[in-house]
């Protein structure tokens, strides 16, 4: 069962076909769309589970699409990093469940099937992105996920939603073009599109200039996708205005694809072995550190709860990029595990914020005062999320930040370890503000005390994710030791 070779292609085709079929399935009955989407995502998760079990048992494996031998055909390559398909399926499934009631109120009825189509397409793009071993295929999946993400930002129909989506689209499209240009350059010098093959061929390339240009272009464009500090301007509006389940997907997963792309680029260049990457590493460390501080700094001044969470994403992606740039064993392990843990934490917080907005209709911290008494479970889950994201043990955020700090010491750059702790302090300040206004301040609107908990379809994902934040803190060794062989292989060349 587990060793059936075709699960990897099923995991891509299933959500893609499901997405296209959603409007047809729900033609007669518009209640059918969410059920169908959940059904498709469940089957995809099953395939993902088999893939993860297989990679844990056998190590990395490849799948040749259509049986064409590499490097001529498209190769799907599943390694330990690709196991992030698990978190994509988990967050995707929970966000779809959360959408059931949330979207029914915030989106006009005839458009609801198209919303589910877009979410499924977005998940398809990400699933393909983490599993592909072909550089051009990577670009195609990136475009699938980016285009559906632009449309999902606009879907809420709020006043500035289209403007935010357009801003996101222009930034995203320019960065995609630069990635395409870099892929073209790499193809020109190596004559191959297969990542592993490019990696071998790059070692013997005489003219370094086009290769370095391609590396710079890719790194910069992926930093736009990952919203690293000076390139982040599209993120706060887009993530704050999108419907809450979409925000959870965008902030937890879509932003990470930029970081994941950087990881893949590093794999190619570490594999080639003969390239000097110190310049890029230093850039990433510095930009990561600046992102941590600036993201946290802006977040302190936000009144809107989702705006605050959006800025917090910028500082957390800063942690991941810094860990990657440190290029030490601990740093990269911490960064990859933080991709996973931050997705859990940020999904908890965004879905929780969505539940609060759904029940109370307010979205600023002042308006939401006293909600802790009205919606105790949701508020508790959000407090757990807040504690996790600051990195207080024994929660999910602690271990990976600890590892990144260790990585800074291992790389001989202890100053950045302190920058990390300093950033955590900033983050602590604004999450304390959130917890404070939930529990310890008299309500601005007394009627807020009357609202009850959100429906089960919204409460369950929030509570489950909050529980996972705690569990991953206690069982944190599992992802760390799971990813370790992949990182060793990557650094060892």
């Amino acid at each position, binding site marked *: 069962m587990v060793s059936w070779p075709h699960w990897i292609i099923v995991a891509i085709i299933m959500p893609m076909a499901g997405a296209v079929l959603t409007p047809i399935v729900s033609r007669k009955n518009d209640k059918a769309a969410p059920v169908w989407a959940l059904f498709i995502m469940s089957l995809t998760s099953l395939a993902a589970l088999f893939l993860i079990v297989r990679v844990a048992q056998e190590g990395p494996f490849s799948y040749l699409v259509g049986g064409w031998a590499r490097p001529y055909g498209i190769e799907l390559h599943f390694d330990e990093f690709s196991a992030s398909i698990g978190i994509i399926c988990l967050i995707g499934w929970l966000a779809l469940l959360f959408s059931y009631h949330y979207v029914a109120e915030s989106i006009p009825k005839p458009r609801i099937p198209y919303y589910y189509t877009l979410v499924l397409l977005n998940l398809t793009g990400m699933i393909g992105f983490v599993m592909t071993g072909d550089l*051009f295929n990577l670009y*195609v999946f990136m*475009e699938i996920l980016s*285009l559906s993400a*632009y*449309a999902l930002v*606009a879907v809420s129909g709020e*006043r*500035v939603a*289209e*403007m935010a*989506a*357009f801003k996101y*689209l*222009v930034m995203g*499209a*320019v960065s*995609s*073009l630069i990635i*395409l*240009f870099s892929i*073209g350059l790499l*193809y*020109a010098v190596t004559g191959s*599109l297969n990542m592993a093959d490019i990696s071998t061929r790059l070692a013997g390339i005489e003219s370094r200039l086009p290769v370095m240009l391609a590396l710079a272009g890719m790194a910069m464009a992926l930093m736009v996708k990952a919203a690293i500090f000076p390139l982040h301007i599209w993120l706060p509006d887009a993530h704050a205005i999108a419907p809450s389940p979409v925000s959870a997907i965008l902030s937890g997963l879509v932003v990470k694809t930029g970081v994941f792309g950087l990881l893949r680029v590093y794999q190619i260049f570490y594999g080639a072995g003969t390239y000097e990457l110190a310049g890029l590493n230093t850039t990433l460390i510095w930009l990561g550190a600046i992102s941590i501080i600036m993201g946290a700094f802006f977040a302190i001044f936000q009144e809107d709860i989702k705006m605050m969470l959006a800025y917090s994403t910028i500082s957390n992606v800063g942690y991941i990029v810094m860990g990657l740039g440190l290029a030490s064993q601990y740093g990269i392990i911490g960064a990859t595990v933080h991709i996973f843990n931050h997705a859990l934490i940020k999904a908890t917080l965004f879905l929780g914020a969505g539940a609060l907005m759904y029940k109370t209709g307010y979205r600023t911290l002042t308006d939401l005062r006293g909600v802790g008494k009205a919606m105790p479970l949701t508020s508790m889950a959000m407090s757990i999320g807040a504690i996790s994201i600051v990195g207080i043990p024994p929660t999910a955020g602690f271990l990976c930040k600890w590892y990144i700090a260790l990585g800074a010491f291992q790389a001989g750059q202890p100053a950045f370890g302190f920058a990390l702790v300093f950033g955590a302090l900033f983050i602590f300040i604004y999450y304390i503000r959130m917890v404070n206004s939930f529990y310890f301040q008299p309500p601005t609107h007394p009627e807020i005390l009357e609202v009850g908990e959100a429906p089960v379809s919204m409460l369950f994902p929030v509570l489950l994710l909050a529980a996972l934040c705690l569990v991953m803190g206690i069982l944190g060794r599992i992802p760390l030791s799971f990813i370790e062989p992949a990182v060793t292989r990557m650094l060892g060349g």
Partner: protein
Amino acid sequence: MIEALWVNLDYAASVVLFLIGLYAVIAKDNLIKKFMGLNIMETAIFAFIVALGVVDGGDAPIMGEGARAPFTNPIPQALILTGIVVAVSTTALALSLIIRIYRQCGTIEADELREME
């Protein structure tokens, strides 16, 4: 220097085209003009990648009667075919967003929109 430019005239032309597009994206206020700039950038990149595969005096790589080497590399063309499909979808999405911005705000000038926010 000049000679290198002349030999690689096609690459140089794509770079110039790319910069023209980038200028329009950054400097123009009208959203449609901004997006046209983006389309120009797309064309520049497409032209660049297709030019990568060109061989002087190369033939179309179709096997059969009368096929003779050298052949033009078909892979960049196949890639750009996909790239064009992506560009068309991006354009469709962007134009529909612009229409909705116009319906809601009554303008598509970025500076006026910024004032309304």
